[in-house]
């Protein structure tokens, strides 16, 4: 019985690609969309809720999870892979605090997850994680909201606004055009932009969206369906008005 795996799965192609990593990124693109927008004093995560089967309990499908009291994560891709990463991250958050008495910074835990992901692209017998993560939170002694993203390759970047999963490219293009610093200066503006961005993908409305707001020193806030509906109807109204304006011509 061989307990040692001697064959690498993620190897270079002749033209310098790591195909397994790229296939993992494709797996992420199959997952439901997750959008994150960093405002002046909060971060908003808006995720697409996949329609549950008739006999399935809805509340057991969770895409927004807490890693620690001050850090929240949304992911896109293989849920089972994400579960493993979430478990490791949660333990690391406590372990870090046990050792140095300070809670982790968002960058630290992002780097930690990214390192794990990279290790799995360079280990025998292992395949990369098919998950991209959006990490949001506040560092201790800082009022600046932070938003980071990791991908299956183990890259991580800080973002002002980002989207992962299905149709992420569409949402990205929308955000690049729409994101303005003064638009996200307050909570309402940030939520509105996040919902608007997700709306590009999730046409069916508020019952297929989960929206979470992360603010400094406050518990993670999940918006109710009614609250989301209000934003959605505002956005639909604005769209109608925009369409009317265009029809009438400038």
């Amino acid at each position, binding site marked *: 019985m061989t307990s040692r795996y001697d064959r690498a799965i993620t190897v270079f192609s002749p033209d310098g690609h790591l195909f397994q990593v790229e296939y993992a990124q494709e797996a992420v693109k199959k997952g439901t969309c997750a959008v994150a927008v960093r405002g002046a004093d909060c971060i908003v995560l808006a995720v697409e809720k996949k329609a549950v089967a008739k006999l399935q309990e809805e509340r057991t499908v969770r895409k927004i999870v*807490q890693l620690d009291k001050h850090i929240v994560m949304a992911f896109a891709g293989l849920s089972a892979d994400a579960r493993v990463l979430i478990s490791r991250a*949660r*333990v690391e958050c*406590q372990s870090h605090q046990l050792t140095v008495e300070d809670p982790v910074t968002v960058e630290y835990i992002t780097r930690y997850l990214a390192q794990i992901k990279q290790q799995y692209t360079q280990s025998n017998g292992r395949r990369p994680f098919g998950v991209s993560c959006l990490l949001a939170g506040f560092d201790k002694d800082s009022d600046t909201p932070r938003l980071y993203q990791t991908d299956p390759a183990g890259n991580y970047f800080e973002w002002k606004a980002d989207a992962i999963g299905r149709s992420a490219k569409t949402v990205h293009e929308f955000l690049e055009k729409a994101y303005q610093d003064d638009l996200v200066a307050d909570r309402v503006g940030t939520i509105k932009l996040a919902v608007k961005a997700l709306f590009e993908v999730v046409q069916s409305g508020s019952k297929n969206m989960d929206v979470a707001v992360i603010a400094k020193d406050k518990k993670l806030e999940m918006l109710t369906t009614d609250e989301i509906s209000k934003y959605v109807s505002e956005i639909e109204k604005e769209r109608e008005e925009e369409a009317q304006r265009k029809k009438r011509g400038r």
Partner: protein
Amino acid sequence: MDFCIGIRGNDFVLLCEDMNAAQSIMLHKQDHEKMLDLNDHLLMTRTGNLGDGVQCAEFLQKNIQLYQIRNGYEMRSSAAAHYIRKYLADTLRSREPLEVNLLLGAYDVISNTPQLYYMDYLGSMATAPFCAHGYGAMFATSILDMYYHPGISVDEAIGILNKCIKELKKRLIINFSKFNVKVVDKDGIHKLPTISVEDGIHTH
């Protein structure tokens, strides 16, 4: 050389500990707090080896926090108590046994009952309406036997505490100057005024 005491009322648990930090004959600190909040409704105090106590308490605190993050709700008091007891029992027969005696004061928000657990370094555990650790326990337990009654209030409990401290000052060879007092109830953990022996044992 340390001392800690716990008193359980109808809707609270009061824990008190001495504030000496000493190594053999040397008294390093007289305002050292050992009590630790394990979660919003779990308070733990200890006697024994100072280093082991810190290791034990912080490790347990982080694991109980991890449970909360993982599951989305606080670890219940009896679950936490049994977990802590097992931890002590496991370390007992390992390379690094922990020389710590614990008192765990808890409020179970689901059944709305206060609970006081007595644990020692051998991994034994008992619930009790009142208990204490250390040499001072011998004096304190007798006083509690006499004055404790079920349904005691916080003020009455502090009164008994003062009686115990007075007795310790009179009859115990060890000199304690300050006592740290905290209470756990359904609203969480609250710090009460420190009791100072120098000023004739009145709280200030």
